[in-house]
């Protein structure tokens, strides 16, 4: 069998992960600036510069976190993981390196565009079509390499990670490509553009990033805990529900307005049914973590995966709650949107990404992590920060929604209601930024091999044959 040479993907993995860490740091700093501007509107009067105004920074932060930090990071760790599942990788390392560079270049160009010219205003598509072309070009190469990693024979090895990967690999080009053609190709008139924006938003988060995160949970949690995931039938059912309903979730974000009512109802039903799928996955993954608290304390990657897994459950339970008719009418156009983003991006994707980096990078680069306290700092600061951000925005959104529905409350009063929550969110963002700063220093120091120690957890040893041996089937 053609066992992959890690040196072929090393550079592309390095580029994607260095990019991911850098974009996260930059995004976190800008996020603090954006919240400060909301908290102290007079800042905009003191420094009236368009490109650092809230209208430019807020969409940029979302862009950097989604495409820069999470997407780049997921692609990087997938390039380590997938060849080790299947033993197959794209023959050309240079092509992958080029694709990784193009992805980072696309993020850079997108950032420059949003800063200088502003966002396009389209939901989850704030950049121009040239940036889309760069993303698609890069993804064509990286995705092809990853799809080769799915392998021809599915008889051995865990099935669910491959299925989630397959769904995710197809979802991005289909969603982004059609969104681009319909939204900017003049083929979607009027309100159809709004429908298409919600479809793309759903594809991006619930059909691309969520399945990618589930690839890591279903592949690495069994390996880390030494326990196989339970019923395959339940797993398959949850997978079908995730891929089948994930693309409809965005419609539940709208309440009345320009969306046909049946589409909104379909969005609500899909979100609730997706909640059932998430419950199925929770039933599969929870037993893996039962009684593993001591191991979570010792293994930093398992700790991140555990929080990521519970955040997965919390994010979709929260989405299902928001989709309920009475709640949806109250919370549409409020800060609960930011709470959902915080839960998904910081808590779910972010923790899964950190767990994957901690467990997989040592295998790829033969590096070690520093002492436990430094890693613990990263864990607690980012976890506490993410929790504060999500909680503050969730409460702010509920108060905002209730106040907006009371015509006697003027808009300026609503803004003053939100201030205490914004202060808490700002504190959370600072904590998260510090945690990310700690991780960045650990990460870069490890890349430069400043730490001679062995990694706390390395699922796949650097040795090629050992790599092959470590792939035990997770499902009976």
């Amino acid at each position: 069998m053609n066992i992959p040479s890690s040196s072929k993907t090393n550079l592309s993995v390095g580029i994607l992960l260095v990019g991911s860490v850098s974009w996260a740091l930059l995004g976190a700093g800008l996020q603090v600036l954006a919240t400060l501007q909301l908290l102290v509107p007079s800042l905009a009067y003191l420094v009236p510069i368009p490109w650092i105004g809230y209208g430019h920074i807020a969409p940029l932060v979302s862009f950097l976190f989604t495409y820069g930090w999470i997407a780049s990071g997921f692609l990087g760790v997938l390039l380590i993981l997938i060849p080790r599942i299947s033993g197959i990788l794209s023959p050309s390392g240079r092509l992958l390196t080029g694709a990784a560079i193009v992805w980072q270049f696309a993020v850079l160009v997108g950032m420059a565009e949003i800063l200088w010219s502003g966002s396009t205003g389209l939901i989850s598509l704030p950049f121009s079509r040239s940036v889309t072309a760069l993303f698609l070009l890069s993804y064509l190469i990286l995705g092809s390499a990853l799809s080769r990693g799915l392998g021809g024979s599915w008889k051995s090895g865990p099935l669910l990670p491959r299925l989630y990967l397959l769904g995710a690999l197809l979802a991005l080009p289909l969603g982004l490509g059609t969104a681009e053609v319909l939204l900017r190709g003049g083929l979607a008139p009027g309100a159809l553009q709004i429908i298409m924006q919600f479809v793309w938003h759903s594809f991006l988060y619930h059909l691309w990033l969520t399945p990618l995160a589930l690839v890591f949970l279903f592949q690495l949690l069994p390996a880390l805990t030494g326990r196989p995931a339970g019923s395959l039938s339940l797993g398959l059912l949850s997978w079908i529900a995730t891929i089948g309903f994930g693309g409809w979730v965005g419609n539940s974000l709208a309440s009345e307005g320009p969306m046909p009512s049946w589409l909104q109802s379909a969005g609500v039903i899909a979100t609730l049914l997706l909640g059932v799928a998430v419950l199925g996955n929770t039933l599969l993954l929870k037993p893996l973590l039962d009684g593993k608290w001591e191991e979570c304390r010792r293994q930093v990657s398992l700790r991140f995966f555990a929080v990521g897994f519970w955040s997965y459950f919390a994010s979709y339970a929260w989405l299902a709650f928001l989709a309920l008719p009475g709640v949806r009418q109250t919370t549409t156009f409020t800060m609960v949107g930011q709470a959902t983003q915080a839960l998904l991006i910081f808590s779910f994707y972010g923790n899964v990404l950190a767990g994957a980096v901690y467990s997989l990078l040592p295998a790829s680069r033969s590096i070690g992590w520093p002492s436990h306290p430094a890693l613990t700092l990263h864990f607690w600061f980012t976890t506490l920060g993410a929790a504060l951000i999500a909680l503050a925005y969730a409460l702010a959104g509920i108060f905002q929604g209730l106040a907006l529905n009371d015509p006697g409350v003027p808009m300026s009063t609503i803004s003053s209601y939100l201030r205490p929550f914004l202060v808490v969110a700002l504190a959370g963002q600072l904590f998260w930024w510090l945690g990310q700063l700690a991780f960045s220093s650990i990460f870069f120091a490890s890349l430069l091999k400043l730490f001679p120690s062995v990694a706390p957890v390395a699922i796949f040893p650097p040795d090629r044959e050992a790599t092959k041996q470590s792939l035990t089937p997770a499902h009976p």
Partner: protein
Amino acid sequence: MKSSHALILVFLLLLLTWAGQVALGFFQVGRMEPILDEETNYPKPPAASGLAQTGARVFASEGCLECHSLSARGPTGSADLTRGWGPRRSVPRDYLFREPALIGLSRMGSDLSNIGLRVPETKDLMLHLYNPRQRNPKSNCPPHPWLFDTRLAGTGIENEALPLPSRDWQQLLPTYKAKALVAYLQSLRTDYSLPEAPLK
């Protein structure tokens, strides 16, 4: 499970998701046409001018959507109409000539789906863009001075100049972007009756 079966299943699920929303959405709202007003023979909703269409892009690029929505809801389950944000709820046909069609995600500021009705005067909108606290000292909206040029007044103040006290014979003149943005804001109004959303 064979990989080819999984591939077909995923493809069908994604296709169903996509077609269910986009294709059905196209048949329902993508083929909508304006209603012709029997008295005036003008279409409803009215087509936006070229300047207003440019203004829609300025509106998006300035990030106004981060704080303002463009969709009035109600009358039940929402206080939008009671707040005076519109004479009726917004419906898909209202977005027929909007390019890009935008809805917004947050309401840190008020809904703007009828700002053209609520603040019809060009000067008022220009003043708000230049300094929102000029009209409302409690406003949280950031100023947009970069949308205005400062020029020597010459022998007289130009008609377009903002009615603000100036220094050294300077006058504040709106740039093309400011004019486009104001034209777009003025075009945002739903004071026409539609079969699916009549005015009461």
